[in-house]
């Protein structure tokens, strides 16, 4: 998102012809249309809703959210277990794997890399049914850890691609000095290379977090006990009336709780976000 510097004379394209006022009006209205739904949800999550009494500010929606179903704390904890498994395993697997793909020759390397990228070609939904059966066979039915591992697999093409590129961008001389000094390849990885590929790791962590945090369809299929639901599945069950009439106030609060971490990460880690976006767009 770099700003382009150029004079008005260099403006190009069909939007060029628009006067400043028209441009501002159109672009501004569209911007409002895009941001308004988010603002509306945030505001109405703390506003007294229709039929809830005199207009004003209230935390009642959040209080109701705390106690719906198994309770917000349970759902948050479940989601965080999935996120932790996804993030930690993604980092370990992709750092080691990216190192292997970038620095080593081994038989079957091309096949393994192709197989990893093939995960992108196969629709996730189509392998959830066999995954459900397989996880059941190893007693990971309805398991948050099992769900986390499935998330690691879905994220793997991105994570591996990201880390292999990160290692490729580091000059070999950096670890060769360490290897000459008697370091093992693992020592060179942990002591010399890890700091150099840290931006790549941050990006892997960011997108693993977002995947684990937001995933719906896998969680819906693989978790079948209400007490084990992650936040998105629990919120959808709220809408579908699993707990009686739809509580829109609690729903608004739930959308806010679920969206705020994503928005915060976007604004704090914009660089990692954009580098991941570019990688993601290329791989697509």
């Amino acid at each position, binding site marked *: 998102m770099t700003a382009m510097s150029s004079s008005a004379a260099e403006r190009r*394209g069909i939007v*060029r012809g628009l006067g400043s006022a028209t441009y501002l009006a159109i672009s501004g209205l569209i911007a409002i249309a895009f*941001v308004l739904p988010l603002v509306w949800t945030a505001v109405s999550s703390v506003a007294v809703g229709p039929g809830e009494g005199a207009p004003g500010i209230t935390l009642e929606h959040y209080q109701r959210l705390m106690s719906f179903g198994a309770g917000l704390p349970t759902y948050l904890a479940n989601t965080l277990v999935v996120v932790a498994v996804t993030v930690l395993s993604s980092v370990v697997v992709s750092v080691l794997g990216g190192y292997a793909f970038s620095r080593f020759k081994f038989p079957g*390397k091309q096949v393994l890399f192709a197989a990893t990228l093939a995960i992108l070609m196969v629709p996730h*939904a189509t*392998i959830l049914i066999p995954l459900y059966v397989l996880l059941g066979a190893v007693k990971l039915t309805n398991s948050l850890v099992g769900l986390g591992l499935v998330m*690691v697999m879905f994220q793997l093409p991105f994570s591996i691609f990201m880390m292999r590129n990160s290692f490729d961008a580091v000059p070999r001389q950096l670890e060769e000095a360490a290897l000459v000094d008697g370091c093992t390849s693992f020592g060179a990885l942990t002591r010399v290379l890890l700091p150099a590929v840290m931006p790549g790791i941050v990006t892997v962590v960011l997108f693993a977090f977002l995947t684990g945090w937001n995933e*719906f369809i896998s969680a819906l299929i693989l978790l079948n006990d209400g007490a084990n639901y992650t936040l998105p599945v629990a919120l959808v069950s709220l809408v579908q009336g699993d707990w009686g009439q739809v509580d829109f106030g609690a729903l608004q609060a739930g959308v806010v709780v679920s*969206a705020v971490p994503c928005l915060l990460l976007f604004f704090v880690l914009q660089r990692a976000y954009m580098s991941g976006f570019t990688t993601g767009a290329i791989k697509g």
Partner: protein
Amino acid sequence: MTLSDLPSSTGRPARRWRDRPGIIGWLYAAPTAAVVVLLFVLPVALAVWMSLNKWPLIGGPHTLNFPDNYAHIPSDELFLQGIGFTVTYTVLIVFLLVIVAMVLALIVEQPRRGVGILRTAYFVPAVVGLTSSALLFYGLYSASIGPINPLLQALGIIKEPVDWLGTPTNALISTLILMTWRFAGFYMLILLTGLQAIPRDIYEAARIDGGGPFQIFRYVTLPLLRPSLALCFVMIVTGGLLAFEQFYVLTSGGPDNSTVTMVMAMFRQAFSLFDLGRASAIAVVMLIALVAVNALQLSVLRRQDP
């Protein structure tokens, strides 16, 4: 040559295999291989195997019944209807998203003041998870708290409140609006990257040759943007054919199963009709179709890439 390379009777065989780069490489790649084989290759193989068997959700026995599960597909009304609906939805969302994303990209390509704010504003919905977005719009469209009906009534555009998810057409349009809101900024960014890669002198030359803004867009911008457009196209088509959660959240497939997608029909076969064999047959057919569509689109994309 070091001492450890020489054979010795005190023997550290471990040292020797470790010295071979192929082995070390495999050690680092082993976790990746484990994830790929156990959680990807094996499930794909199992999907194929299940599709050849009678495989009830609970209990057994699992007996070979090929080709029954596949033979059932042509008489699976819900899935057939799902194909039609999913393709319709995909065609509509491709046009909608590409056009809106193109307009947004042209807006934020302008080197005007405050354009960074516009980019962020257009992109920000893409940051929120799809399920949260769908839940947000479920509230927007709702009769009890949704602001759309009161707003449109106040403006005099509609007289009676509209049930935004109540008819098949309304449900489809409402979902298309949600998806455009959620993804337009994402594709805008891809197109913006493409726009910024077009050299300026080409525009200059076109203008000197007397091209108007629309001619330049048609004969200079669009052809040069083709790789980026094709990339958007591939991603939107794949996403559209696999549509599930936007409809699951907003409509649950209703009204009257009018918004059941292919993926939804597959899961109903598995978890409502308890037939994993038939569901797997649908999965295998979809998998082959999607891989074929992907491969086809990518080959077209590559041909267009100069």
